[in-house]
């Protein structure tokens, strides 16, 4: 599998990367971990004039403690996210979701920011980032702006990151002490999610004080199940089914070889209940 010819640049700073993008106009593609871009190029589904590789920009990697939130560099590989002590302590849901991505090889190459900007609705990082109320830092020729996760995902493979801009950082409010679970439904282990539900809850006295629910592959973008979140408040572990049954309300899931939309809606309810149950256990 040989991609069409393209120019390749590997800047070492964000500014250089932005200049490279500006020069190329809309014929450039940004290479993060390459786990989605390279197959697309190799199958010649896309043939950009220029590929801007962010792999040498050290400043875009790693996790910082910023007091009330964590700042995760967009080029941090999945495997680093999963292994990071800060993320494990303060954003457990992200760990639970990211450790289900594909296989170990891909988790060592693929990056959190790359997956978010690629915005495949079947990808596993959108729902937890949405559920955790993250803020995304985007820089462009006009400077830096922040985007709430709820406004970040626009449509299938489309985010608020415009041509010429880069996602540099993911800020995640600390959810210290929250229980979390990611219920991913697949037929084979390395598959994209057929449906997945990300749940994180704060439990007080055996019942739910706060809940955050994200849905994977239930529409053209990751979705937040706010009605379920509200219905769960005050509920105990034995009392989740009714609240979770509404998980698929307002969703528009796809139909494909793995299942039709109705089946996905059914799964969303079952998986939401299971995810919340597990989240309550820790």
């Amino acid at each position, binding site marked *: 599998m040989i991609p069409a010819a393209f120019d390749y640049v590997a800047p070492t700073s964000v500014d250089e990367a932005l200049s490279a993008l500006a020069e190329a106009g809309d014929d450039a593609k940004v290479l993060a971990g390459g786990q989605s871009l390279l197959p697309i190029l190799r199958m010649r589904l896309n043939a950009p004039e220029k590929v801007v590789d962010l792999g040498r920009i050290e400043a875009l990697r790693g996790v910082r403690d910023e007091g009330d939130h964590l700042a995760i560099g967009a080029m941090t590989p999945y495997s680093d996210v999963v292994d990071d002590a800060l993320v494990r302590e303060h954003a457990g849901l992200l760990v639970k979701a990211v450790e289900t991505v594909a296989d170990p090889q891909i988790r060592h190459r693929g990056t959190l920011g790359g997956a978010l900007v690629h915005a495949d609705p079947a990808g596993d990082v959108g729902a937890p980032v949405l559920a955790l109320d993250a803020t995304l830092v985007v820089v462009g020729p006009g400077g830096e702006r922040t985007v709430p996760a709820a406004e970040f995902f626009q449509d299938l493979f489309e985010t608020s990151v415009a041509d010429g801009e880069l996602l540099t950082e993911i800020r995640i409010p600390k959810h210290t002490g929250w229980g979390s679970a990611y219920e991913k439904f697949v037929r*084979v282990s390395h598959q994209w999610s057929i449906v997945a539900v990300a749940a994180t809850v704060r439990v007080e006295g055996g019942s739910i004080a706060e809940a955050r629910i994200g849905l994977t592959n239930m529409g053209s973008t990751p979705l937040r199940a706010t009605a379920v979140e509200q219905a769960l408040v005050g509920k105990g572990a034995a009392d989740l089914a009714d609240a979770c049954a509404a998980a698929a309300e307002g969703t528009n899931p796809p139909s494909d*070889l793995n299942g*039709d939309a109705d089946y996905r809606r059914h799964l969303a309810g079952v998986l939401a209940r299971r995810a919340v149950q597990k989240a309550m256990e820790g």
Partner: protein
Amino acid sequence: MTAVDDRPQAAPEIGNARRRKEDQRLVTGRTKWTDNIQLPGMLHLAMVRSPFAHAKIGAIETSEAKAVPGVMAVYTSADIADIQGVCITAWPVTADQKTPDHLPMPGDRVAHAGEIVAVVVARSAAVARDAAELVDVDYEELPAVLDLKAATTDEVLAHPGLETNKSAFWQLDSKGGGTGGDIEEAIAKAREGGIVIEREYRQQRLIPAFMEPRSTVVDPTGEQVVMWSATQIPHVLRFCIAATTGLPESKIRVIAPDVGGGFGGKLQSTPEEFITLAVARKLGKPIKYTETRSETMVSAHHGRDQWQKLTLAAEKDGTVTGLKVDLICDLGAYAAIVGGGVPVLGAWMFNSIYKFDAYQFNCTNYYTNKTWVDAYRGAGRPEATYAIERMMDELAAEVGVDPLEIREKNWIRHDEFPFTTVAGMTYDSGNYEAATEKAKELFGYDELRAEQKRRRDEKDPVQLGIGVSTFTEMCGLAPSRVLGSLNYGAGGWESASIRMLATGTVEVITGASAHGQGHETAWSQIVADRLGVPFESVEVLHGDTQIAPKGMDTYGSRSLVVGGEALVLAADKVIEKAKPFAAHMLEASVDDLEFSQGRFTVKGTDKGVGITDIALGAFAGHDYPEGVEPSIDADATYDPVNFSFPHGTHLCAMEVDTETGQSTMRKYVCVDDIGNIINPLIVEGQVHGGLVQGIAQALWEGAEYDEQGTLVSGSFVDYTLPTSADTISFVTDHTTSPATSNTLGTKGVGEAGTIASTPAVVNAVVDALRPFGVDDVLMPCTPERVWKAIQSGGGTQDAETTSAQQAHFDEGTPNQDPAAGTTDGVVQ
């Protein structure tokens, strides 16, 4: 000094779980795969393939591609018309079989998406690929027939010139053939006072998905044209080239270097091989073509693809009196090399291990505008085994007894061997009771049945199902006379040579062509024992028509059963040829010699000489007996007298999550009787790999096309191959009833796991769902299909099995809706 030989006796190699001697190079990849081959001045190809399933080829504009720097030529069909050859069918199953012409590069019409219409030749593969994008082909789309059942109506024709989609009808009838009773009588009788079970099952289309994509290099610069190819069949391929391209067979050398898997998928003479050869001849330069994985998926042949209508007649107590099989089979766009013969191989297997009074097998093959279909691990036998093992479970459910009990009532008892079946095959040996007993014990059958009952009683959302498959298969393809009687275009013999080198090592040449099976190790073990030489001293050579000039190659679990016997014959000839040398050297009579552990000794004395010393003596030629040639090398060709019949009992426990439809394997036990075992480690590997491939058919894999004839599952994103993360640790064991038709007593193991496991898994899934009124789930049993099956029964346990699920053929509706559980717009 006594006459007792007190040298240490070497432990026998046969039965030793040796690690494979070829694995160092194969596992590290530090070896010669076809794509590694670099020749001076070599040029590269990229194929231009049709995106349409059925279309007339109009003008092909190549000038833009030709103008790309580095492009040497762009050829269309007309440019290579006189030398491109033909993809041939070795097995027209009937004299009146309709067979469309299959040119490697058609000039007028494409009959499936992925067919090659032009080829770009360039200095690098990258340039060739870029330029191929610039070739502009005018297509005039024609109506395409994609669905197998639609093909039977002839409303749309895959090949308008044939005037029908039907390729051939093939029948085996026990009454007509004198091997049993009248099937219609048996069914009529059962309708009155017994049980008739009618079911229709789907064998979905599969993609062999070998690890190494196919690759071909052709060097036309010497006296012989040399072709390296990632093929299972270098010898057959050489024949095909000679038969269709005008090149004399003696001017063609085909080499299969190390080949990364095949599973039947490299048992073909491919358009890509013919086109690479044609371009090399045309330009007089070495040419390489290596396909992409996406090209493998659409252009390498697929497997399975049948609808199976089955009518089983039985007495009220579950004694089967007859089985009628009506198959329709999708050959895809062309009759491949075995092609229509693959489903026909099932004819002798639907009766499996059972004693039926009457049997009829009807097989009708059809063309569609999809990728051609041919042998895939098991080839005809998995389809048959699936059907009969599913039916035996249905019968058990109908009679209300354990599935093992219904099988025991009908199977051939161990004291009845040799047994000639209702299909006319003579099974030489077997012991179904012993394998089943051992499997039950290893499985914890009674405990799991108790757990199943408990879960049912408690209405556990996770139900347990237990699936049984007591399979047999026919291996060791094949006695040449039998192949001749079936109109097959070749024999089934195998060849071997042994060269006793002067320095004590031994070269073994085999006509079997390993592509990952471990022949080098197993062959070394056989020869080490037979000739009494060290395992390490044996070198196995194969896969090159100049080194191993005769061979029928590797498929159908034949290499050991047929090729291993050729090896034994050759080794015995070596010993016979060495005898007069030994007598001469020991100054004894030939009649006084004994051969053991690599040494000839004179009976009753301590005088002896080693066979490697004789080899050195023969090499020197200074002093050897009158009347013999100065060589102890030998060649042998073995033609089997019968097939071999491995069998086994496979037990599978599946947990089915009734809330989601997800099926998870809990336990898998198989006890296979494959006769004597040469290398238990290799056998273990074959069984494990085979099991996963069969389980994958049951649960995961399926080649799906859309209504335009595009392969939807054209990459590993959508063609869901399992990995080790998706499987559990299997319990494997053996019973041993040596084959009586060959000296090694082997039966073959390459396909056993694949053949047996599919019905075991589906039977387990269905068993879990029976309380919900479910008696079938289409393969692959996706969670969605399982969940929908549960919903169709009302979603609750203790649902009555409805007439809709038990529908009768006579009512004109199959018991399976082809669209059940599939997504809209996806053709089954």
